[in-house]
């Protein structure tokens, strides 16, 4: 064994050992106590760091849970009840069952329904287009179609549909984190109660203009005629500012409002075909 090798091994060992000793003492001196339950809770969380809970990432949410005395206000939308049950188990708290929600883009102003009245040539993001003008159609409330919601979604739950001009939420992937809701400059996206088999009955319109103006801009606009309000036996529909709104928490999915809407503004999704004959033209899904 040449002397070089011996010296090398000796020097490196000495450096390694002294570094280890220094690090040991430094870690002792700067030790920060953290409740070990924070790590346990964090491991139970999905780890997507999406911010849907309202905190800055999963660790921050874990810290909030450990500090809390009751989990009523704390919810991880991505993990849902399963995750919150685990967290409750770790912390020895009551688990509070929460309803899952799912996002919906409340606009059906596709190219077929809503003709263009100008040709937008600026930067193709919804935020910039919205800050320039009311949009390249006569409906100032409708979807711009450039996909800021798609860019914001961390879960691939939004599908851009350039042919129709309005994106669609993929129900199975949506975790209701709320990123798209914040991203949409037109405030078109709503987190609604998730029903079994993802069934939904929604007014796919946000147009608050008077009926005549709305209808001229888009053939499936809500004109605020109140027919749906009258039809609903469960008080789920309210009309405000020429616009109908179906409260997803009250709606029982009976679908009676859908055929009475004169413009086809109310959408029903994931239902079996109707047994009673109804004018097909009046029944709108987001496919047409």
């Amino acid at each position, binding site marked *: 064994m040449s002397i070089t090798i011996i010296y090398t091994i000796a020097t490196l060992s000495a450096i390694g050992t002294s570094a280890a000793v220094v690090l040991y003492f430094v870690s002792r001196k700067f030790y920060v106590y953290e409740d070990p339950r924070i790590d346990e809770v964090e491991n139970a969380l999905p780890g997507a760091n999406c911010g849907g809970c309202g905190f800055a990432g999963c660790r921050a949410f874990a810290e909030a849970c450990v500090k809390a005395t009751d989990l009523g206000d704390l919810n991880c939308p991505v993990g849902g009840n399963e995750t919150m049950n685990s967290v409750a188990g770790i912390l020895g708290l009551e688990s509070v069952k929460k309803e899952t929600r799912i996002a919906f883009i409340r606009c059906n102003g596709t190219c077929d329904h809503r003709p263009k009245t100008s040709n937008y*040539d*600026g*930067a193709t993001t919804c*935020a*910039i287009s919205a*800050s*320039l*003008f*009311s949009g390249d159609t006569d409906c*100032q409330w409708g979807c711009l179609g450039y996909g800021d919601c798609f860019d914001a979604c961390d879960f691939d739950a939004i599908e851009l549909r350039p042919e129709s001009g309005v994106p669609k939420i993929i129900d199975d992937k949506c975790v209701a984190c709320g990123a798209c809701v914040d991203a949409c400059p037109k405030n078109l996206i709503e987190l609604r109660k998730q029903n079994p088999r993802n069934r939904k009955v929604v007014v796919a319109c946000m147009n608050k203009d008077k009926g005549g103006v709305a209808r001229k801009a888009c053939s499936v606009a809500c004109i605020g005629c109140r027919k749906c309000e009258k039809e609903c036996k469960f008080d789920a529909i309210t009309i405000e500012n020429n616009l109908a709104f179906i409260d997803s928490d009250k709606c029982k999915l009976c679908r009676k409002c859908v055929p009475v809407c004169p413009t086809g503004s109310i959408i029903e999704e994931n239902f079996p075909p109707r047994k009673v004959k109804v004018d097909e033209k009046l029944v709108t899904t987001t496919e047409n």
Partner: protein
Amino acid sequence: MLKTFKIGGIHPPENKLTAGKPIEVLPLPTSVFIPVGQHIGAPAVPVVKKGDTVRVGQVIAKSSSFVSTNIHSSVSGTVKRVDFLADSSGYPKQGIYIDVQGDEWIEEIDRSTELVREFNPDSEKIISKIQEAGIVGMGGATFPTHVKLVPPKGMKAEVLLINGVECEPYLTSDHRLMLEKPDEILVGITILMKALKVEKAVIGIENNKPDAIELLSKKCKEYKGIDVIALKVKYPQGGEKQLIKAVTGREVPSGGLPIAVGAVVNNVGTTFAVYEAVQKNKPLFERVVTVTGKMVPNPSNLLVRIGTSTSLLVEAAGGIPEKTGKIISGGPMMGKALASVNVPVTKGSSGVLLIPDEEAARDQVNPCIRCSKCVSVCPMGLEPYFLMTVSEKQIFDRAEEHHIMDCIECGSCSYICPASRPLLDYIRFGKGKVGQILRSRKK
């Protein structure tokens, strides 16, 4: 050596097609829509209702706060209704529809054309008259003039600068006004000097208007304290900070107002309106608009009543040419593209520009090649490529650190970018967001 601002600037083709065309009066329309929000600040509140008869010059909407101003009827007739109509932003704004009958003016207005040089030199009375007359900045910014004439506490005006630069390509309304109404403008300047209590006024005119420079230089000798300076032709010389720098050599500090360096800037059109308001009791209800474009059959400078539909102006200039790609309200660098030609002319409408299809379409956006042309042309010394990146990625604190709020939105960066990147689109967006953050911080 002509004076100019030192940092940045571009030289777009001037295309002053209408420089030699005298101002023509556009015939009265059959109906008008007069918006109540034609200025910076709170919109005015309507004081007429359906069925009311109005005369030219009558107040139809009253100022609703200090930073606001009155709106006067530009026609005589009957109020059809007070309603909403989409403006250039596409959003409906409140205004007053009037069916035009005849052309009766209110009695106070002196319709004679003789020059009146005497006026009551009381500063407060002048400012009050200007306020009553609804005068706003007519270069396009539409800031209420009476607010500008009252410096904030502790600040004093030293010099009045008159903006006769008109650096935007195509526009010539200020140029024609200087050639056709030089005496009225000079009297207007003396009125403003008394209002501001300054002894010195300078008119800045770009060197591509030699006839106006010569005429005003000759005539200003008849008035005390007024000078004319010819400025190098460079966009955006007409920007108020750049004008102050070129004429006085002083730079308005970042985030500050011109009054901080003792300067107050007014457009020549505004100055003419001040003359008419103070000397002829005529409120602001008409203005000169340049209708122009390479394919327009008869480009002209038209004297138009506020509220006239832009479609009538375009018709008077020969109609919309075939293959028109864009209609712009204002100049090509800072004007607003209209979705429809049925928007009304307002106090800030300096021009209507029709651009052919081939020129209207933007080129494909390419990656940034870091050529730094945007940095070299920015008149505020900013770095547009960087501000665009941080605005795009929504890193607004860095945008604020890099002085995004100093941007005057002149468009030089987007103009020069060889990769056709939408620099100003994103910077404007970033400015909006940073502005929101700053406002919420103040609360």
